[in-house]
């Protein structure tokens, strides 16, 4: 069995995130500790902890959206291509061509094509991370500097990473929640902070001191999109 101290020493940032998250109940915190102490092999500790986090996702309190409010989503372009290719049996070249074709259409035609062709697919089979825009609730991509978004959202990327962005309206019955350290999981906890706002990356923290309001929600289909796709070069 693994002593909990091994976890706190090895994964100090994750431990601090879980301890400092007011959305996590004492009961869940105690269960987490028990789960860690039940791990039989210290070399498996990371995956063991990650499994627990996944089992406690969406446990933050519900967030009420204002009437007509929509959410914004950032998705790595590479992963979007993989998602569509793998779900629809297309080659990656076909998806690249499909995407280029959509991006060349006007906003309304593009949205129709997206709804028609991939509306039945889930944006993710697991939880969805999405941001809110307090100054433009109905159109969360309006008024934001798109190229800055990955940094302001605290996402991981390299110089060549491309992103796609879209706005969507959660279907009825799919309510957003405050994110917790368990939602962030072992990998993203070090770049996550409690309180419902993103932790912008260091390179833009001077311009985005507050972070952006962020929520998590159950899987949503692409049919929930309300506007055309945007992207970073």
């Amino acid at each position, binding site marked *: 069995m693994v002593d909990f101290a091994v976890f706190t020493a090895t994964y100090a940032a994750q431990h601090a995130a879980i301890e400092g998250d007011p959305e996590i109940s004492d009961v869940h915190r105690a269960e987490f500790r028990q789960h860690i102490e039940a791990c039989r092999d210290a070399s498996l500790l990371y995956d063991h902890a990650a499994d627990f986090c996944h089992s406690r996702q969406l446990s933050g309190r519900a967030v009420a959206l204002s009437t007509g409010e929509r959410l914004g989503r950032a*998705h790595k372009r590479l992963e979007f291509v993989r998602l569509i290719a793998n779900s629809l049996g297309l080659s990656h070249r076909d998806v690249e061509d499909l995407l280029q*074709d959509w991006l060349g259409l006007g906003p309304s035609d593009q949205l129709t094509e997206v709804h028609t062709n991939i509306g039945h697919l889930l944006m993710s089979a697991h939880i969805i991370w999405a941001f809110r825009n307090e100054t433009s609730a109905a159109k969360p991509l309006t008024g934001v500097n798109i190229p800055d978004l990955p940094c302001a959202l605290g996402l991981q990327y390299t110089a060549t990473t491309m992103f796609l962005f879209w706005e969507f309206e959660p279907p009825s019955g799919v309510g957003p929640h405050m994110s917790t350290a368990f939602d962030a999981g072992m990998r993203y906890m070090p770049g996550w902070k409690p309180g419902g706002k993103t932790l912008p990356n260091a390179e833009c923290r001077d311009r985005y001191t507050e972070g952006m309001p962020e929520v998590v929600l159950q899987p949503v289909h692409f049919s929930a999109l309300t506007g055309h796709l945007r992207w970073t*070069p």
Partner: protein
Amino acid sequence: MSTIEEWTNTIKRALENEPKAVPGRAGETPVGDLITQIQSLDPGSDEMEAVQRALERVIGQNANSDAEWWINFSNILCLSGVPSRDFGLALDRMLSAGSPAEPKARAHVYVTATDIGRRFPLPRLAAETQIRAQFPLQWIDVAVAGDQLSAATDCITEAVRSGTLRTSDLFLRLPGWFQRLGNQFTPFVGSWLATLPSGSQGGVVEWLRRRGLKVSVRTTVQPMGGYRVGHPYEAGFVGIPAESRTFIRQAKPRNASLNGSANLLTG
């Protein structure tokens, strides 16, 4: 620098973790992260050479894996920027030797090899009867890539009639076929359009209209066995406005850049 052995383990681990992974905040997955890692390497470096050798090793050790494994492996091969010419030949030889045996996996290996530049002659494709019957879209994709348009038309016609192909699947391939076929695109669409249900035909025509293209429908379809190599659809240009012909003939190459403002189909 990582050794071939280390890269082999890294690739195998990513493929092993992929099915059970929970995607990250922006959709990150183990295979996606690996692709990003390989993309960051200098194409001419020793490190990239190690990746190539490792990928060859992984192929050799997993030739009979299932379709899901091959789909993810294909993502690495096609999206990572690893020099892929040698892999096309390796996959071709593997297919010739009968691996993988599962038709779905086999269909995806054909598509992967095609995506990285391999072309397959018609007798070879015609022999893949299980793929043609069960996974017609993949079979058609490979045929179109090899300029076997009569064969592709026959397969579309049969698959639509037998119900193994949905019109929505065809819609998804139109942009890719447009890019690949250039001035043969609308004649090719015209060669099978009449076989679709009338409502679906209207959908295709509308799809073309939104991109400034028109199609002339051919009501008779070349029967199976009547394959012709080359460009048999010049007659399909009849009735297409000169402007649209120009668009078709000047179709942008596949590597057109995504600059956010280009309208792909109207230039």
